[in-house]
Structure formats: structure tokens, C-alpha cells
């Protein structure tokens, strides 16, 4: 920790949060909100004079509420930066001044009540997300009486109790009478591997953490009777099995099966009601301390961070990697990497390993000094452009510059264009070419698909990042599906123009599905809002023409939702079966009529022009 504080190449921004990220790989622009510390970080010597005079007492978060701190405090003795911090919400008032005792006590005069929050702008090439996790709060498991019974504690509270630097100086005590417990039970999988309360996944670290804790107890106080209640003991890592054996050799009892309930009896002992899996009978085991081995969850605000960085999450709520085996530290968004629990619960060794891996990946990108960007950007054909400005309006990246007054066609800033294709789909005059995903290329795919037996097929437009990847995930998971759907990949669902959809219906498609990322998950900021707007509008038009709107569904399927993809495909197949040949023929006729009407209208509109021109000539 101190190395980070000292390293000349590391600028530490503590008490700060990232609030905005724009840009792209190699060129991110980041806004960091620095909260006012009210204490000069460089001048403060952490002497502690301010703490002594502060009249405010608050629960100490670092000690899990087992000790107190003042409104001005250092989180813990080895904190980096070592400077104290004044919590503005706890302080009696610095604006206007209510107490001022701390600043009077500070000889070096490093307390400044006028300090304000500030925003710092940074430019970086890569981002490593190491946002960690939070610990499960077992209050919801009412059967275990956490917060109701003082001697039912969490494994995090246990860590502080057994720590020589903790509130008891490392003396393990019952919280009701401050005496050494005689019997301690550990309950595993609290908030983990549960379909009801907590999380369905294994939190990875809790088994070994409890094994470690039992050894800590036994090495200090061999007379304490220790029992561990578990579903499975997962001791799979290097040196783990040895540690588990060591715990057993100390006389720690391991019992399969979790207690259904904890009740405190008149003697203040905690009775655990647990089924003996060998006899099938319920037994009552008494302890004077119970440690709930709590699991790990995604931290608060991870969703906010995820949306800021255009990332996806897996079903467990942690961040989704680019590939679970081959790119485990890469985010699907280029230039962003994961370290530690942001990607999944893991222990210290794995977190450190992943951090070094992320750095290697980030370094291989930065060391070249430049990178190539896929050639999928948009181009404007000036001759076709009627200067309506829609493209500039819909671009999520403001990558299209347009000034109506200049009477010049819009310009695409190539480095800023991410290639979603929304502009190409919205342009009413076919004046935009999406490189590598041109109208002609996509239309040719539709034609090829529907040339023969169109009634047997479902046309599926899938965005590269979420829905197409979700279909891949369904494939990797071998989730069996009907064989009727055929996917056409676009970078973003916003690339799917009404032209493509209508073309598919004209060619006899019974069903056309448009699929993309969930709102908030779009890899092109919010381009998929345009998808929804466009598809909903077209569906309304189809309904007005007498075409069934259900035949144009829109679904959001994320890269992690293989099962959802499978379900949607099954639904599409059922939908396809409801569409008759007559219905498709009728649709084709309606759309052909509509097209003929439009053409006639255009001709009519052009004719007077020509006549007028002839007259002037």
C-alpha cells in the first residue's frame, strides 16, 4: 500500500469518484469528482491532535461498527494517504462554523473549512476497472437472528475482532459480555448458493476464509470448541487442502448441513437446529458465538459505472468479460480491462494475478503508441445529401458536424465515429454509406436467405455486441433451438433501417425480428433508443396498412443471456407457424401497392418541376 503512495508514476486520487467517461480506445476523457477532504493532504502529519478535540462520535466503518471514530479521522492507522479527513456530514458544521475545535488544535493549520469539491479532467489510453465487491448483509436471513442476537456476527466482524489492530486488540470476545467464547460455530454459504435469499453463485472465498479463521482461533485458544457447518467445503486452490487438513488436525469439527434456525436460550447460549445428515434427525447444538460466513456481491453503483463505460454484466451482476476463457481480463469494449472482483468474486491471489494480467494486456495496447480502428465508419455522399441534418442529430458520438447555415453537407469525424450505423439507417436520401455494412450488402443477405422457401425462415437482425453474442453464448452452452431463424449481424441494432425490414417482408418473410442490447447497455451510448423508435413507428405503419404488427417483434438480448436467446427463438418459431402463405402474399401485395403509390406521388411532384423548368428555358 505504501508503495502506491510513494511511486512517482502513480497519482493517487483518494476520496474521489469517476463521474464521466467519453472517447474511445487509446483516447478516453475522464472526469473525476474529488470530494473535499478539508485537510491538506500534503501538510497533515497525522498527529491526531484534531481527533482528540472533536466532540462528534460516529460508528467506525473500518471496524464494522465495533468501535467509534470522530467526525475528523483517519480510516485506520496505516491509511494511505495518511492525511486525516473531515466528514462533512458528521461535522457539527463548517458552513457556517459551529465548533472549529479541530482547526484550533491543528498547529500546522492544515484544516481548511473552505475547501470545495472539484472536478478533475484526465486523458488516458486505457482503463482498468478494479471496483471490487461488497459483503452480503445477512439481516434478511431472519432465521439466523443477525442484529437480534449480539453473539451472531459476520465473518467481516470476526476479522476485526481477531485483529491485533482491531477494537479489542485481537482478543476474541462475545459481544454481550466481553468474555472469551467457549464454543464458536461457523455457518457457511451465507448469502451464497441460495436461490431464495442472497445470491445463487458460490462466492469463492468464504470456505477458505473460515478454514483460516478456525486455525486462528485454535492457535490462540486451543480450548475453544469450534464447529463448521457447510454444504460443501471448496478447498480447490494451491495449498488449500493442506490448510483444511491443518484445521481438522486442530480438532475443528466439520459438519455437513446448514442449521435451519438459531434461537437464543435463557442462558444466553445460541441453539442451532440442524439436521444430522447421517441419521436424518434434527439435533440441537449450542454455542456462545456464531460466525456467519457471508458471501460477496457486486458493489453498489457498479451498474452506474458499467453504463458509463458501456460494459455488460453477467447474470450474477458482475462485469462481463470479452471471452470467458480466451480474454478473461478484457472488457468487450476495447481499451478497458478488469482486475479483481469487478469481474467475479475471487480471493487475493486471483485478484493480484488478474491485475497483473490486465496490466500486460493494457501494456500491449499502449506500448505501440498507436492502434488501428476497424474500418466500419460512415461516409456521406455529398451529391445525394439534401442537408436535412438528421444524421448529425442521431449520432450518439457527435461525430457528424453539420451547420445548416453553411449550406455544406455534414462531415464525419472519422476518429470519433464508432460505426454504429444509426446515421445510415436514418438518412432518408440514401446519402450515407456505412463501410463494411452497406445497404447493398445487407439487402443481398436478405435476398439470399429468402430466395427459396421463405415461409420456413425467420429473419433475425442481431447487434454484434449483445444479441449476436447472446446467440453465440447459447451456442457455446448447447442450448437447442428451432432451425428456422437466420441471423444477420450488424454492429448496432440502430443500423437496421426500415428499408431492410420492408425488403424482407416484400421477399416473403413471415417474421422479422430486430434484436439489440438492453437500454443502458448499448455499446454505442444510446443508439438503440433510435432502434426502438424506428421499429415501433414502422410497426404502427404496418398495422395501419393491415399487416399484423406481431410479425415485427423487437427484443433486447444481452451477451450473457443465452437462455433468453433460446427462449426468444422458440417464441419466434411459434410465431412463424401462425403466419400463413395467404397472409404473406397479402403483405407482399399491400407493400407493392404502397410502393407503387409512392412512386406515382414522386412522379407527380417532379412533373410540375420539369414543366416549370421547361417554361423558364
Amino acid at each position, binding site marked *: *500500500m505504501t508503495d502506491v503512495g510513494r511511486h512517482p508514476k502513480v*497519482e493517487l*486520487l483518494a476520496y474521489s469518484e469517476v463521474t464521466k467517461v467519453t472517447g474511445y480506445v487509446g483516447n478516453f476523457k475522464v472526469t473525476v469528482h474529488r470530494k473535499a477532504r478539508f485537510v491538506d493532504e500534503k501538510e497533515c502529519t497525522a498527529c491526531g491532535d484534531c481527533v482528540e478535540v472533536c466532540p462528534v462520535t460516529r460508528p467506525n466503518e473500518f471496524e464494522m461498527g465495533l468501535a467509534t471514530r470522530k467526525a475528523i479521522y483517519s480510516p485506520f492507522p496505516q491509511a494511505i494517504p495518511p492525511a486525516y479527513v473531515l466528514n462533512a456530514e458528521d461535522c457539527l458544521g463548517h458552513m457556517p462554523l459551529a465548533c472549529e475545535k479541530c482547526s484550533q488544535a491543528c498547529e500546522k493549520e492544515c484544516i481548511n473549512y473552505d475547501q470545495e469539491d472539484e472536478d478533475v479532467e484526465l486523458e488516458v489510453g486505457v482503463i482498468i476497472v478494479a471496483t471490487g465487491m461488497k459483503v452480503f448483509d445477512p439481516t434478511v436471513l431472519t432465521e439466523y437472528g443477525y442484529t437480534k442476537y449480539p453473539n451472531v456476527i459476520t465473518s467481516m466482524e470476526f*476479522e476485526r475482532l481477531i485483529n491485533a489492530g482491531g477494537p479489542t486488540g485481537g482478543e476474541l470476545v462475545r459481544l454481550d459480555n466481553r468474555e472469551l467464547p467457549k464454543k464458536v460455530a461457523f455457518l457457511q454459504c451465507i448469502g451464497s448458493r441460495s436461490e431464495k435469499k442472497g445470491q445463487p453463485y458460490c462466492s469463492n472465498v468464504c470456505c477458505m476464509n473460515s478454514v483460516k479463521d478456525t486455525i486462528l482461533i485454535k492457535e490462540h485458544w486451543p480450548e475453544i470448541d469450534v464447529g463448521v457447518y457447510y454444504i460443501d467445503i471448496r478447498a480447490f486452490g494451491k495449498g488449500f487442502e493442506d490448510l483444511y487438513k491443518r484445521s481438522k488436525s486442530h480438532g475443528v469439527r466439520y459438519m455437513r448441513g446448514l442449521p435451519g434456525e438459531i434461537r437464543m436460550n435463557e442462558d444466553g447460549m445460541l441453539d442451532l437446529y440442524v439436521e444430522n445428515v447421517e441419521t436424518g434427525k434434527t439435533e440441537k447444538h449450542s454455542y456462545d458465538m456464531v460466525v456467519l460466513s457471508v458471501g460477496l456481491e457486486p458493489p453498489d453503483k457498479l451498474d452506474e459505472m458499467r453504463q458509463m463505460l458501456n460494459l455488460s454484466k453477467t447474470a450474477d451482476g458482475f462485469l462481463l468479460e470479452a471471452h470467458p476463457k480466451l480474454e478473461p481480463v478484457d472488457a468487450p469494449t476495447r481499451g478497458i480491462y478488469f482486475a479483481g472482483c469487478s469481474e467475479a468474486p475471487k480471493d487475493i491471489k486471483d485478484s493480484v494475478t488478474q491485475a497483473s494480467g490486465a496490466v500486460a494486456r493494457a501494456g500491449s495496447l*499502449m506500448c505501440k503508441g498507436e492502434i488501428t480502428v476497424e474500418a466500419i465508419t460512415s461516409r456521406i455522399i455529398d451529391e445525394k445529401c439534401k442537408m436535412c441534418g438528421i444524421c448529425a442529430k442521431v449520432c450518439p458520438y457527435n461525430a457528424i458536424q453539420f451547420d445548416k447555415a453553411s449550406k455544406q453537407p455534414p462531415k464525419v469525424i472519422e476518429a470519433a465515429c464508432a460505426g454504429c450505423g444509426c446515421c445510415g439507417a436514418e438518412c432518408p436520401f440514401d446519402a450515407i454509406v456505412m463501410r463494411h455494412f452497406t445497404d447493398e450488402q445487407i439487402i443481398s443477405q436478405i435476398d439470399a436467405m429468402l430466395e427459396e422457401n421463405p415461409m420456413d425462415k425467420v429473419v433475425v437482425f442481431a447487434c454484434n455486441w449483445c444479441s449476436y453474442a447472446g446467440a453465440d453464448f447459447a451456442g457455446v452452452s448447447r442450448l437447442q*433451438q428451432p432451425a428456422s431463424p437466420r441471423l444477420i449481424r450488424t454492429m448496432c441494432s440502430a443500423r437496421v433501417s426500415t428499408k431492410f425490414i420492408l425488403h424482407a417482408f416484400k421477399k416473403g418473410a413471415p417474421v422479422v425480428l430486430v434484436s439489440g442490447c438492453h437500454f443502458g447497455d448499448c455499446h454505442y451510448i444510446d443508439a438503440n433508443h433510435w432502434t426502438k423508435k424506428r421499429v415501433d413507428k414502422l410497426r404502427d405503419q404496418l398495422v395501419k396498412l393491415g399487416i399484423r404488427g406481431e410479425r415485427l417483434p423487437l427484443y433486447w438480448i444481452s451477451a450473457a443471456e443465452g437462455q433468453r436467446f433460446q427462449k426468444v427463438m422458440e417464441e419466434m418459431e411459434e410465431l412463424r407457424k401462425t403466419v400463413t402463405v395467404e397472409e404473406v402474399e397479402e403483405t407482399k401485395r399491400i407493400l407493392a401497392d404502397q410502393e407503387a403509390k409512392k412512386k406515382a406521388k414522386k412522379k407527380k411532384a417532379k412533373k410540375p418541376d420539369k414543366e416549370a423548368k421547361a417554361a423558364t428555358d
Partner: protein
Amino acid sequence: MSSKRIGVFVCHCGMNIAGSVDCDAVTEYAKTLPGVVAAVANRYTCSDPGQVEIKKAIAEHNLERVVVASCTPRLHEPTFRKAVEEAGLNPYLLEMANIREHCSWVHLHDKKGATEKAKDLVKMSVARAAGLEEQDETVVPVTAKALVIGAGVAGIQASLDLAENGYQVYLVEKEPSIGGIMAQIDKTYPTMDCSI
């Protein structure tokens, strides 16, 4: 009708594709598609011999477009782009048909349906390939600075490694001190040493 000379490479992927798709039938079908002048089936197209075959065919048949029918482009598109580039073609003249993740793996018990779908997917790719154009990639400069969000054990390690590699690091932590949850833990397994 396309005037481009297209080569199609159908991958068995061992039994991953060949197990539920009749790859020979797909290859034969590919030969009938407009523009296709060569269609070959490979056991593993992504392997070195598979890639060599693509390169050889490009030279032999003077191919202008290449279609690889195998796994998802999200996996091996970079591999095959590189292969066609080495054979002198612009990498954007490659097109992939996903007949594994979207076909053989999800229709394991429907060989007929899977084969028909694979044929369609190849047909669609061939049609798209005919319309592909050469593209030049844009070169973008990279700022040699890193942002690390979170200063728990992972963020600290990442920052130090980056700094030791010579990169400027901004380490952002929401709490007043770095250390995260690790700093709260007493001893750590499996070596039972202190966390701080």
C-alpha cells in the same frame, strides 16, 4: 450475378460442426452459388494447414473474396483476416458464416435442419462477400496513461505494475484511504500472513 471470384472454406471443426451438419453437402452446395470458383472442406480451418489451404486457393484460383464457414466471427475473424491479408487480399474481403455457434451446436439432433440452415448461411455470406469492398483502417494515437478505478488489492497491484512498466497511472479510490476490503482482513489464506 456476381462477377467476383469467391472461394468458400467449410470447416468441420472436428465433430463440432461435422457432427450435426453435412459439411460435404454444404461444400457441394457452395460450388453452385454465383461467383464461387472454389469450395473446400477442412477439418480445422483455423489450424495452420487450414490457413495454408486458404492462401493456396487464393493464389491458385485468383480469388477476390473469401468466405469461411466455421465458428463465430467474434472468435476467429481476426485469424482469417490475417490469413487473407498474408495472401495479398485486403482483410475486409473476408466474410464468415457462423455455422457452429448459430447452427451445429444448437441443432445437435436436427441434422437435416442444421444442414439446410448451414447452406443458407453460406449462401448469405457468399452474397454479402460479392458486395464487400476493400477498406483501409484508420490509425489512432494511444495516450500512454492509464486510469485504475478502485484501490483495493487488485487496483493497487495493477497500478504498481503499470507504473513499473513506465506508464503514468491515475488511481481513483472513492474512500478516503486505499486498501479496500483486503485492509480489513486480519490474516490471509493459505499462507496465514498479514493483509497489510
